[in-house]
């Protein structure tokens, strides 16, 4: 990609360790502690974490910023009437698709003003690859694709968030009639919602961070788009799984929304490691789930502080909630769900799967879900 000097600066907080949790809930690991125990065993998590520790120790810096963990508390989701701010067509596309997630490292010199040029470049790239014979059977259309990049305005939460970009590939038949609708064969999404401000500020000037990438459509086109991005912006993609902690967060966050807009049911799918594998679908009535959730949140200590209890959710409450559900299951079947793994969570607000698939069905709580996923993607950044 040519010579380029990359400077990565770490910001060190001056002063001593803070003992009380800061308002936005991010816990800073003390400077001399090294390892944060991750419970997820998947290889990609271990690789990225190890590489970040290795790199940092080589540079001689203590990994204050790279030893991150998932937020231990977050704001309770409020219903947001996002349809006022976002274009309704784009919103419809966001809501009806099941996205396959990946993480992307920061993009070098990606400009939101150059989207038209990117569209042309990507169409040309796809056409060129087809002629090389590398792309086999792209939807059978003989004459190429029309790519469109567009900005989805109205979704950013902080000033540091880059604007969300939507990519769509339509078939472009050679002898199209005037009114023939163009079929969309592939959609992609690049977004960053409520990204970690320290990390975003630590990036050098020309990098734009849009860590969450979602795609839906044929694998062939996905590979082509990813390779174009890698060539054009010197970034790299990697698979993003939704860890069981994040899935448990979604269980709690979505149940929390039941009082404002009904979730219809709380469905969790667990798999047990027996031979042959056993799948357990645990569906809870939404009203009962919500009552269990609110009973778990009603901590007398928090009530004395007043006011704050309603707006922030702590990981301990999430754990108590899930433990309550598991306990009820155990009392009946004497089977501990902790021995298995949580693979899928579904409610009327959306469904999330362990292998990195997400579908958001209700626009009012989209921002909360995307915030959580952005966090997951940022945690997987190799540096």
């Amino acid at each position, binding site marked *: 990609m040519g010579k380029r000097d990359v400077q990565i600066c770490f910001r060190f907080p001056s002063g001593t360790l803070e003992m009380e949790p800061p308002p936005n809930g991010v816990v800073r690991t003390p400077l001399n502690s090294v390892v944060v125990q991750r419970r997820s065993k998947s290889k990609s998590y271990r690789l990225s974490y190890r590489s970040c520790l290795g790199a940092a120790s080589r540079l001689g810096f203590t990994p204050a910023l790279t030893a991150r963990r998932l937020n231990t508390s977050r704001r309770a989701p409020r219903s947001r009437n996002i349809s006022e701010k976002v274009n309704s067509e784009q919103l419809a596309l966001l809501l009806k698709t099941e996205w396959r997630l990946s993480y992307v490292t920061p993009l070098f010199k990606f400009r939101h003003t150059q989207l038209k040029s990117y569209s042309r470049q990507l169409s040309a790239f796809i056409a060129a690859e087809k002629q090389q014979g590398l792309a086999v059977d792209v939807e059978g259309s003989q004459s190429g694709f029309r790519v469109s990049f567009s900005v989805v305005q109205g979704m950013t939460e902080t000033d540091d968030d880059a604007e969300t970009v939507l990519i769509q590939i339509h078939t472009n038949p050679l002898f199209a009639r005037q009114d023939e609708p163009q079929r969309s064969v592939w959609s992609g999404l690049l977004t960053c919602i409520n990204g970690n401000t320290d990390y975003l500020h630590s990036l050098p000037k020309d990098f734009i961070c849009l860590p969450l990438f979602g795609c839906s459509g044929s694998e062939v086109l996905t590979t082509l788009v990813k390779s174009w991005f890698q060539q054009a912006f010197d970034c790299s993609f990697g698979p993003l799984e939704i860890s069981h902690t994040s899935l448990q967060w979604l269980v709690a966050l979505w149940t929390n929304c039941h009082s404002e807009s009904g979730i219809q049911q709380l469905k969790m799918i667990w798999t*047990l*490691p*027996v*031979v*042959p*594998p*056993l*799948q*357990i*679908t*645990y*569906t*809870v*009535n939404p009203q*009962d789930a919500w*009552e*269990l959730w609110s*009973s*778990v949140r*009603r901590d007398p200590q928090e009530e004395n502080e007043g006011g704050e209890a309603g707006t922030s959710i702590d990981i301990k409450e999430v754990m108590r909630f899930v433990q*309550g559900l598991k*306990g*009820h*299951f*155990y*009392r*009946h*079947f*004497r*089977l*501990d769900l902790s*021995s*298995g793994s949580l693979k899928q969570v579904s409610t009327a607000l959306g469904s999330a799967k362990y292998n990195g698939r997400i579908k958001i069905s209700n626009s009012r709580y989209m921002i909360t879900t995307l915030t959580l996923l952005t966090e997951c993607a940022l945690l997987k950044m190799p540096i």
Partner: protein
Amino acid sequence: MDDSTRRLLQRLIRRIPAPMLKPTLEKWGRLTVAQRQSMDYTQRKWPLTEKLLSICEENEWTTKHITELEMICVIDNPNQGMWRAFQLMDPEDDAHSLELTQFKEQFKSHLSELVRHVSVKIKKHTDEAVWIRIAWGDGFSRPNHLKPTYVVHHLQTSFVFVTSLTSKQKPLLSQALVLSTRHHAIKDANLSGRNLTAIRDLLMRQYEQVFPTKYSSPLEEKNQTPSNPHIEREQAGPFANRLQMACEAFGGGTLPQLQSAVYKLETKFRDQTNRNMTEREEPFRCVVKFESTNLLESLRHSASSGIASTPVTPLLSSIPLKGRNYFVITDNGPGPASQMHPSQK
């Protein structure tokens, strides 16, 4: 030859797996020697279908003949579609001495009284099972042979297995069965699955049973995983206990293949640490569904490996014990559809 007969034959040939085509046709026995020799089974299915259609014209087969072939094919390969089990209740005195010819006549006459146009075919299989094929019509149309219902009944037992039955047809079939088998009522046995042999074995307990023994006998597990000898020595006793209890609950050897079990729980939430929920009057409603390629194997393995605590809870062990896979569990005593108490812990 009728167009519908052609269609029926075409669909049937499509359903039969290619290697089974020759033996099934020979078992049927309606092809002449010359025709049998002219069939080239190395061809693909489409030319074979055409050949059979022309033979069909030659021999002037009617729908009746084709349905014979269909029955043979379904009897040989019963593990398709969803089978539901029913149980006949309150037998009369002469129910146990029911004979096949009597049953056949009675069933056909009762069903024809209830439904104007219906086509019934009854056949007795070698293993004492009576197979019934029913093509339903109504007052205005002829029987629809493309969507037949199959019923399997073992005479002198009270179990009936049915597939492809709509809710409209259910009361008619129930009435005919009850009258012809000399019982008073029929009820849903709450057991369903894809594999007919499995649900039949489960209900009739035709799989290896393991009984509690006074002297713990070492039940050998088939695949021994190599591990640390110290751990093995320490764990040998508890492991043998778990394995014994797991096999007592679910059975030994090969288990019938069930695919799923559904529990509808309507019990109260009891947790010492959570006072608010425990004081709640209403039940905590949820539905739990267990799914696996072989559910009983999975449950037995989870009990023997310690994932499920032993002794196995009655909720799980009643799948093989009572031969059901749909349960409604409430706090009170046996409700109308439930016969279980939840384990209070």
